[in-house]
């Protein structure tokens, strides 16, 4: 589904990714682990089109993504849950979720200028809202509150829910567990399996390597911008080198 070949990316004048090659197959959960600053987030931003690529190739469902803007990759079905959640704090939870469905309405001026309630009542949007509320019931309770008033964990749920609202086929998840209590982080990571069962393919970036590899089929280890190890999740979890470096 996603193939990356020899990808190099510069960020802020620094070579953040060097010759990265990886692939994610349809229906997989793939974890990309590595220390802070290894280039994990850079990779996700480059796939989503938010960072320019120096060299290499990103292909998604047979289509080259090089040079594509984030709004176009979003329309192709790539969803991103950014690091730090980045929810729209002064908009309500429901508005945040409805904005997730914006990809379906971009360019449809009648819908864009019509009452937003009509969009909330569209069958396909209602169905997706139901899925999101099923995964995260607390969001339904808080739907009319401002996103900024949610707790960190709830904001993370909202960020995932917002990404799911665009019915992505490929979901890029950046540092899901960051800043969350370990229990809650594990619970959210556990939900990724349920999302995959809904037909999603997931590329997960995590500092917490053990937790990330436990929910994944395969994994890659990134060190200072290079892939240094790859394999099935259990291979990586059991390898001495990985255990020493990342799993303590």
């Amino acid at each position: 589904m996603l193939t990356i070949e020899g990808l190099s990316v510069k960020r802020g004048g620094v070579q953040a990714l060097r010759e990265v090659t990886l692939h994610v197959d349809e229906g997989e959960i793939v974890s990309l682990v590595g220390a802070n600053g290894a280039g994990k987030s850079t990779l996700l931003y480059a796939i989503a089109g938010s960072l320019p690529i120096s060299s290499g190739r990103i292909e998604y469902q047979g289509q080259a993504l090089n040079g594509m803007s984030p709004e176009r990759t979003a329309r192709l079905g790539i969803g991103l849950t950014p690091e730090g959640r980045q929810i729209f704090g002064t908009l309500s939870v429901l508005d945040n979720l409805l904005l997730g469905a914006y990809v379906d309405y971009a360019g449809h001026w009648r819908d864009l200028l019509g009452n937003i309630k009509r969009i909330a009542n569209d069958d396909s949007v209602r169905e997706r809202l139901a899925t999101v509320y099923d995964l995260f019931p607390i969001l339904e309770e808080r739907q009319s509150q401002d996103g900024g008033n949610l707790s960190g964990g709830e904001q993370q749920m909202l960020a995932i829910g917002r990404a799911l609202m665009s019915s992505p086929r490929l979901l890029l998840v950046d540092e899901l567990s960051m800043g969350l209590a370990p229990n809650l982080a594990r619970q959210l990571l556990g939900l990724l399996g349920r999302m995959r069962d809904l037909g999603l393919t997931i590329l997960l970036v995590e500092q917490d390597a053990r937790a990330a590899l436990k929910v994944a089929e395969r994994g890659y280890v990134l060190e200072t911008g290079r892939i240094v190890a790859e394999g099935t999740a259990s291979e990586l979890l059991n390898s001495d080198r990985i255990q020493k470096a990342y799993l303590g």
Partner: protein
Amino acid sequence: MPDYGFGDYLQFVLSGLSTGSIYALVALGIVIIYSVTGIINLAQGEYTMLGAMFAVTFYKWGLPLPLAFAASVIVVILIGMLIERLTVKPVRSASPVTLIIITVGVSIIIRGVALLIWGATPYSLPEFTPGAPLTLFGAILSRQRLWIMGVTALVLALLYYLLERTLLGKALRACAINQTAASFMGVSPGQMSLLSFALSAALGAVAGIVIAPLTLVSYNMGLMLGLKGFVAAVIGGLVSAPGAVIGGLLLGVIESLSAGLISSGMKDAIAFLALFVVLLWRAEEVTPRLRSLLRRQSEVEG
């Protein structure tokens, strides 16, 4: 000080509110562009001049006043969008200070072109519904001032609907909150920037047209209105639409009261004095915003 009665004070307040409506519309335009693009558009006042000038021109060509009004707003929207494409889009990643200076350049160019097209002689536009002024509890109010307040109220209602009740408005606000996150939702920041310029141009044009019958329309009328709008926007905190409206109305009333009670020659001085007071008083809110603007500037340079 002359001996004023209730009717006189009411009159100061009402005429202040109508002038303040104009400031509010200009301030809203500044706030919308600033929120979405981070640019303080110092050319905002020129949209009022263009609105008034095109309305006068179309009216002179024989178009009925309502049609001249609508046609002028459309033309100014197109000009606003053209300005965005020509002066903002090509330099999107430039520093905020560069962008502000570009808007100063744009306003000088617009004023220059307007002088070439329409000359220096002021024009006038008839009142929308000519007739004797209305009296309300001893206050005398011209019909046009009612038009100003009515049209402003209508525009505010439409803007409220757009920003609070439509997905497009939410996307615009999302873009103002976090452009990167919005782009991951499929919202195009470029399109939202264009939309913000279109909206601001429309607001400015409407303000210029409704005030035109009360003032003379000339190529340099936008300068002062733009500055007053900027003062109003800062009073309102620079990023808040309701704040901009309150700031505009407040500024209008302060000016009108100071013109009536002190001296009409003092009203501009008092408006800018209000800006200083607000900048000092709201330093905690406004200064960090200006600081982050400067920080972004140094990041761009560094």
